């Protein structure tokens, strides 16, 4: 690994440490979900009903770490912040593994 690459990886881990800004800032500014990404409860509040097709499909997948949060919906801010950082690091690791596995199949060896 070149020193530039090492520096860039360190930069990415620092980014992971900073990701909690992505939960803290919206909270500060009283901002909620992204447009079109409301949960099923919020949709019911917005519309007064849950569209029939949406109701059937919306819970099709149980993600292991939903919303980058280990603490569930009632989690404290501290838990959310810690979860975010850990999720960021897990993301980096999973992506690295996937990218290198993919490249093993794809890239021709250079001598």
């Amino acid at each position, binding site marked *: *690994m070149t020193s*530039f*690459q090492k*520096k*860039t*990886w360190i930069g*990415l881990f620092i*980014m992971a440490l900073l*990701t909690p*800004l*992505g939960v803290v*800032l*919206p909270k500060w*500014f*009283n*901002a*909620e*979900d*992204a*447009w*079109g*990404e409301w949960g*099923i409860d919020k949709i019911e509040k917005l519309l007064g*009903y849950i*569209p*029939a*097709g*949406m*109701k*059937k*499909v*919306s*819970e*099709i*997948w*149980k*993600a*292991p*770490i*939903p*919303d*980058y949060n280990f603490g569930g919906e009632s989690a404290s801010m501290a838990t959310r912040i810690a979860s*975010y950082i850990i*999720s*960021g690091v*897990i*993301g*980096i690791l*999973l*992506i*690295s593994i*996937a*990218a*290198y596995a*993919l*490249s093993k199949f*794809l*890239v*021709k060896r*250079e001598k």
Partner: protein
Amino acid sequence: MHIPDGYLSPQTYIPLYGVSFAFWGIALKKIKKELSAKHVPYLAMGAAFSFLIMMFNIPVPGGTTGHAVGGGIIAVLLGPWTAVIAVSLGLIIQAIVFGDGGITAIGANCFNMAIVMPFVSYWVFNLVKGNATQGKRLSIAAFLSGYCGLSAAAVITAVEFGIQPLIAHAPDGTPLYAPYPLSIAVPAMALEHLLLFSIVEGMVTVMVFNYFSKHEPDLVRTLAREA
């Protein structure tokens, strides 16, 4: 911009899966031909960068949130086909592990953020850059590539939302999936991106572009091609 499960009808998400599979196939073939072993770490870094930058939710005070995607800068640095794979990797992991974006919507989300965005960004960058190989013009090209790329992705996403009430409704007209028509979805998503999120994307694109031009100029693919 991560469409959750239940917002798109099958007649939308199945074709978009098809389109994404086609692009993935071509992208993998191209990478096999062009990407050399020394570029592999950059594919991983690009994917990780995209994954992380999407976690930085930017608030519209009292309103919604949004985020940069990184698809533009990856396309500029590594080429649009590598960006297709890098951003898709991030999106697939977000959907499966973190429930960010639906499983049924992986094809759609990859189409919007990992296909439309990198190609628009790449095209805009080259268009604005012209023959410049250094200087302010490159920074402007980088900014606009991020800005336009994310905006295009947002509008396409809004169109996918907005056509749902038209193509998937109960006999009495009640929407079965995403409920808001084009006339609401497109302005809502276009405005918040044009006025805020895409500006952030543009700034991130310039910062990363300048960092790489300074430290790893050979990698800056579109520049290297000129040499």
